[in-house]
C-alpha cells in the first residue's frame, strides 16, 4: 500500500528540482530525506494535495544561507591559475598552432580581418561623434533654427538657417543668450601677385573667437574681427600666400565692386581641426548696413547660420519661448505685410539646435558654409558590415575548433584522468582563443594601418592610427578584444571540456552526430555573404543606371566657365572671340547656381519651379528639343521681355491642354509672360530628384554667371587653351576656372560610388572569410573520412563520385542559406531603391547571379580538398592504423 501511494502522490517535481539546484550537495541527502518523510506522513494525514503544497512550501523555506552555502572541498583544491599549468597551456597552445598551420592561419587571418574592420568602424564612428565637441563653450552653444507651421499645426518645413535679425535681436531681448555670432560663406576674388583666384571667405561677427574655440597663433581674439577691412587667415593660408605665419599687418587684396581693396591681416588662426563643421581659411568681419537692420522685412530673408551661447543654467525650451515672443513682438508689422502681399499663412517658430547635434542631423544639416554634413545611415551601414565580418570570423573559429577537437579528444581525456577539472580545461581553451585573438589583434593593427588611406578616401575622412592613443578608444579596443575572444572561444571551451574521458581514451568517441550547430553556423555565414553580394550587385546596377541613363541632353564636349555678373554685351564679345577658333562650336550663357521662384498661372494658382535665365543658343547647344511652339529667337526681339519656355512637367502641373500662349504671371514684380514653347523634360538636377517644373526666360534684369562652351570632340587641349586666352584677355580681373559638364554630372553620384565600393569591399571580405572557414571544414571532413574514401576507391568509386560525395553536404548548406538571404536582401534593397525616383527594377538575375557566385566559389573551395582526398592512393589511407 505504501508503494502504491508513493506512485500516485509524488512531491511536486519542480520543487524537487529547485531543491536539488540550490541546496548544497553535502546537505541535500538529509534535507531531501527529511522532507520526503514528512511528505509521506502528510499524504496520509492531509491528503496528497495539501501534502504537495506543504512540501513546496518547506522547500522554499530552505532558501536560507546555511543551505545555500557550499562546503569547501576537503582536499586542497587545485589553484586555477598556477604558473606551472600556465606554462603548460602556453606550450601546448603554441605547439597546436604550429602543428596545424592551416587552421591557425585561417583563424588568425579571418579574425584579424574582422577585428580590423570593427576597429576601423570604431575609429570612424568615434570621429563622427566627436564632431564639434572641442569647443570649450559646449554644451551651451546652440544654432538658431526655425520651422514653418501651417495653419493646421503641421510642421511643413524645418530651416537650419537664419537671417540678419535673429542673432542681435534675440541677444538683446532674451537675457539668457550671452552672446551670438553670425557666420556666412561667400566667395571673393583674391589677387596674389598677378594671379587672380576665387577664394572662399567667411564673414563672422566680432564674437566669433569668444564663442568658438579656435586658437589664434597671433592676434588678440577679442579685436581681430573689429575693424571693417581686417581679415583673419589660417596657418595654411598664411603659408600659401606669404610663405610664413608671421604676417600680422600685411595686406591681402580682395576685389570689391570691380576694384581690389587691401585687407589687413589682424590674426592668424591655427588650422581648424579635422572634426569641425566650421572650417575657414579666410575670415572677415561681418558688416551689416544700417538700412538692412532697419528693414523689418529682413525677418524673412534667410541665408546663413547664427549661433548663440546660453547662460549655463538656461533651459533651451524657456529660451525658445522667449525668442518667439521677441520675434512676434518685433516682426508683427512685417508678418502682416507678408500675409497681405504674398498670402503667406504659415507661422514661423524659432528653435535651438545643440551645436554638437548638427553634424549628424538629417533634418537640420550642417550646411551653407558649414562643412562635412554626414548621413548617420552611413555609420549604421558601416557598423553593420563590420559586425557581419567579425561575426563570420568568430563563426569560423567556433566551427573549426569544434571540428578539430576530435584530434584533441585524447589530450582532453588524459588531462581529465590525471585530475584536470573542467574549469581548468575551460581556462585552457579560453586561453588558447585569447592567444589566437591576440595574434589576430596585432595583425589587425597592421591591416588597419594599411587600409586607412583607402578608407579615408572612401569615407572622406582624415583618420589616423595615432587616434588610437586615446584612453576611450583603447578601452573600446580592449573590450572588443576580450568580447571577441570570449565569443570565439567560449562555446568550443564548453564543448571540449565536457568530453567524457572514458569514451575519448577508448577511441569510441566521434563527432558523428547531426552537428546542427556547425551546419547552422555555416548557413548563417553564407546568408550574410549572399546578402552582401546582392546588395553590392544592386547598388552597382543602380549606379550604372544613374550614370548611363540618358539625361535628356548632351553633356559631351561641354566646357563650363564661371564668370560672375556676365553682362549681355560681354556674352556677345566672348562668343565672337571664342568662335574665331574653329574648334569652338557655340557658346551659351546661363545664370549661376539653381534658381527657383513662384508665379501664378491659370489666373490665381501658384506654382513653384526652377527658373533658368538663358538665351536662344542654350537649348540647341544642349540638344534639348522643343516639343511644341518655338525656341527663343533673334527674329522676335520681344522674346526677352514677353516670352518664356516651359518644360513638359510644368505643362502637366499647370494642367494646360494648349500650352502655347498661356500666361505666367510673376505677380511679385508684376510682369506677365506668354509661353511660346514647350521643352522636352530633361534631368537638369541629379537623378536622385524627380524632374520638377522648369521655366526659361531671357529677362534682361537677370544676370548670367556662367558660359557653356561646346567644343569639337578630341580638341580639348587646343580649345581649352583658346578659351583661357580669350577669357584672360576679356576679363583680366576675374578668376578663370573650367569644368567639363560630363565630369560634373558624374560627381553628383559620389555618394553612390562610395556606397558601391564599401559594399563591394564588405561583400568580398565576407565571402573570403566564409570561404576560408568552409575550406577548413572541408579539409577536416576529408581527413576524417580518409579511410572511408580509401575503401570506396578500392571498391571502384570514381574520383568524380567521391568529389560529389564530399562536396554536396556543403553545397546543400550554401543553397539553404539562400532561403534566408534572398527575402531579407529583397526587402532591404527594395527599401533602398525607394530613395530614387529613377531606379532599376530588382531583377531575378541579380539573385540568380548571386546564387551562381556563392555556389561556384563554395564549390571551388570545397572541391580542392575533395579532389585531393579523392586522388590519394587508397593503399596509403588504408595501410595506416
Amino acid at each position, binding site marked *: 500500500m505504501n508503494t502504491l501511494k508513493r506512485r500516485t502522490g509524488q512531491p511536486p517535481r519542480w520543487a524537487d528540482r529547485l531543491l536539488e539546484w540550490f541546496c548544497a550537495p553535502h546537505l541535500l541527502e538529509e534535507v531531501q530525506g527529511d522532507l520526503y518523510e514528512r511528505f509521506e506522513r502528510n499524504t496520509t494525514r492531509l491528503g496528497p494535495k495539501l501534502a504537495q503544497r506543504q512540501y513546496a512550501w518547506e522547500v522554499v*523555506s530552505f532558501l536560507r544561507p546555511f543551505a545555500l552555502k557550499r562546503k569547501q572541498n576537503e582536499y586542497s583544491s587545485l589553484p586555477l591559475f598556477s604558473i606551472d599549468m600556465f606554462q603548460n597551456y602556453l606550450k601546448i597552445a603554441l605547439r597546436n598552432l604550429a602543428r596545424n598551420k592551416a587552421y591557425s592561419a585561417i583563424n588568425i587571418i579571418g579574425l584579424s580581418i574582422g577585428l580590423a574592420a570593427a576597429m576601423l568602424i570604431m575609429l570612424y564612428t568615434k570621429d563622427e561623434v566627436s564632431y564639434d565637441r572641442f569647443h570649450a563653450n559646449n554644451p551651451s552653444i546652440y544654432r538658431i533654427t526655425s520651422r514653418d507651421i501651417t495653419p493646421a499645426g503641421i510642421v511643413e518645413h524645418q530651416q537650419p538657417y537664419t537671417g540678419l535679425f535673429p542673432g542681435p535681436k534675440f541677444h538683446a531681448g532674451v537675457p539668457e543668450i550671452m552672446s551670438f555670432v553670425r557666420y556666412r560663406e561667400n566667395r571673393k576674388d583674391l589677387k596674389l601677385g598677378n594671379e587672380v583666384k576665387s577664394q572662399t571667405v567667411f564673414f563672422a561677427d566680432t564674437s566669433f573667437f569668444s564663442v568658438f574655440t579656435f586658437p589664434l597663433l597671433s592676434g588678440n581674439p577679442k579685436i581681430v574681427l573689429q575693424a571693417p577691412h581686417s581679415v583673419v587667415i589660417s596657418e595654411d593660408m598664411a603659408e600659401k600666400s606669404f610663405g610664413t605665419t608671421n604676417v600680422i599687418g600685411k595686406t591681402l587684396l580682395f576685389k570689391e565692386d570691380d576694384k581690389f581693396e587691401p585687407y589687413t591681416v589682424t590674426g592668424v588662426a591655427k588650422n581648424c581641426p579635422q572634426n569641425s563643421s566650421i572650417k575657414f581659411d579666410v575670415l572677415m568681419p561681418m558688416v551689416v548696413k544700417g538700412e538692412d537692420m532697419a528693414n523689418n522685412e529682413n525677418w524673412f530673408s534667410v541665408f546663413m547660420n547664427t549661433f548663440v551661447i546660453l547662460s549655463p543654467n538656461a533651459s533651451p525650451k524657456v529660451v525658445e519661448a522667449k525668442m518667439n515672443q521677441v520675434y512676434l513682438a518685433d516682426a508683427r508689422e512685417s508678418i502682416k505685410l507678408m500675409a497681405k502681399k504674398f498670402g503667406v499663412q504659415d507661422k514661423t517658430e524659432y528653435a535651438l539646435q545643440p551645436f554638437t547635434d548638427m553634424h549628424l542631423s538629417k533634418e537640420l544639416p550642417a550646411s551653407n558654409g558649414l562643412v562635412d554634413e554626414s548621413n548617420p545611415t552611413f555609420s549604421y551601414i558601416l557598423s553593420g558590415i563590420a559586425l557581419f565580418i567579425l561575426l563570420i570570423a568568430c563563426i569560423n573559429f567556433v566551427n573549426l575548433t569544434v571540428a578539430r577537437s576530435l584530434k584533441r579528444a585524447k589530450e582532453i581525456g588524459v588531462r581529465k584522468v590525471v585530475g584536470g577539472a573542467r574549469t581548468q580545461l575551460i581556462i585552457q581553451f579560453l586561453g588558447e582563443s585569447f592567444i589566437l585573438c591576440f595574434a589576430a589583434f596585432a595583425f589587425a593593427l597592421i591591416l588597419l594601418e594599411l587600409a586607412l588611406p583607402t578608407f579615408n578616401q572612401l569615407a572622406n575622412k582624415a583618420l589616423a592610427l595615432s587616434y588610437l592613443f586615446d584612453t576611450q578608444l583603447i578601452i573600446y579596443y580592449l573590450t572588443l578584444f576580450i568580447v571577441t575572444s570570449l565569443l570565439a572561444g567560449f562555446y568550443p571551451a564548453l564543448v571540449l571540456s565536457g568530453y567524457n574521458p572514458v569514451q575519448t581514451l577508448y577511441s569510441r568517441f566521434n563527432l558523428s552526430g547531426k552537428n546542427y550547430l556547425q551546419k547552422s553556423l555555416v548557413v548563417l555565414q553564407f546568408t550574410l555573404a549572399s546578402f552582401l553580394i546582392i546588395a553590392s550587385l544592386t547598388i552597382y546596377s543602380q549606379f550604372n543606371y544613374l550614370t548611363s541613363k540618358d539625361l535628356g541632353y548632351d553633356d559631351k564636349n561641354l566646357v563650363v566657365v564661371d564668370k560672375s555678373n556676365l553682362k549681355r554685351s560681354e556674352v556677345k564679345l566672348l562668343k565672337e572671340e571664342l568662335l574665331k577658333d574653329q574648334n569652338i562650336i557655340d557658346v551659351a550663357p546661363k545664370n549661376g547656381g539653381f534658381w527657383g521662384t513662384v508665379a501664378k498661372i491659370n489666373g490665381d494658382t501658384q506654382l513653384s519651379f526652377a527658373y533658368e535665365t538663358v538665351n536662344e543658343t542654350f537649348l540647341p547647344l544642349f540638344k534639348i528639343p522643343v516639343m511644341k511652339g518655338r525656341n527663343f529667337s533673334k527674329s522676335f526681339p520681344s522674346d526677352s521681355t514677353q516670352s518664356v519656355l516651359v518644360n513638359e512637367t510644368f505643362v502637366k502641373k499647370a494642367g494646360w491642354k494648349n500650352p502655347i500662349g498661356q500666361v505666367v504671371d510673376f505677380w511679385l514684380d508684376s510682369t506677365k509672360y506668354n509661353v511660346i514653347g514647350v521643352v522636352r523634360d530633361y534631368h537638369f538636377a541629379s537623378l536622385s530628384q524627380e524632374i520638377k517644373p522648369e521655366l526659361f526666360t531671357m529677362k534682361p534684369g537677370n544676370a548670367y554667371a556662367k558660359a557653356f562652351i561646346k567644343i569639337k570632340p578630341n580638341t580639348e587641349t587646343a580649345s581649352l587653351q583658346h578659351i583661357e586666352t580669350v577669357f584672360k584677355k576679356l576679363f583680366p580681373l576675374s578668376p578663370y576656372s573650367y569644368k567639363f559638364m560630363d565630369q560634373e554630372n558624374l560627381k553628383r553620384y559620389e555618394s553612390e560610388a562610395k556606397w558601391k565600393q564599401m559594399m563591394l569591399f564588405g561583400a568580398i571580405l565576407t565571402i573570403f572569410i566564409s570561404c576560408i572557414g568552409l575550406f577548413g571544414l572541408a579539409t577536416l571532413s576529408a581527413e576524417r573520412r580518409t579511410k572511408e574514401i580509401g575503401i570506396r576507391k578500392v571498391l571502384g568509386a570514381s574520383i568524380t563520385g567521391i568529389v560529389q560525395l564530399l562536396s554536396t553536404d556543403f553545397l546543400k548548406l550554401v543553397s539553404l542559406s539562400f532561403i534566408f538571404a534572398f527575402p531579407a536582401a529583397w526587402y532591404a534593397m527594395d527599401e533602398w531603391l525607394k530613395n530614387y525616383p529613377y531606379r532599376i527594377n530588382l531583377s531575378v538575375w541579380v539573385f540568380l547571379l548571386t546564387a551562381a557566385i556563392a555556389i561556384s566559389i563554395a564549390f571551388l573551395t570545397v572541391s580542392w580538398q575533395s579532389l585531393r582526398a579523392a586522388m590519394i592512393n587508397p593503399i596509403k589511407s588504408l595501410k595506416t592504423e
Partner: protein
Amino acid sequence: MKRTYLGEFEEIVLLTVAVLNDAAYGVAITDELDRQTGRSVSISAVHAALHRLEEKGMLSSHMGDATAERGGRRKRLFTVTALGSRALHDIRAMRDQLWNSISPNALPAISI
C-alpha cells in the same frame, strides 16, 4: 562565567536532541519539539539550528540508515557533544542560581 552564547531556540533544540538520545534527526526533532513545547516549528528552522550547533561544536553527527519513506535517503543523526552538554549544564546552573536568589515574595503569585 564565560561560555558560548546559545539562543533560546538553539537551547531547546539542543535539549531535544538530548531527549531523543540516539534517534535525533530533523523530522524526529521537529515532531518532538511540537509535542513537548506545543510550538509548531518549520523543518528548515530546525535544520538551520542543528547546522549552527554543529558548527559551534555542541553537536556531532553521523549518517544513519536509509528508509523507504525517505526514498532511500539516509538520516543524519545528531548527538550532544561534551561541549554541548557543558553548555546545557552551565545554563541550568546559572538559572538555578538565579532562581535561588529570588526572595520568596518577589514574584507575584500565579495561582490562588
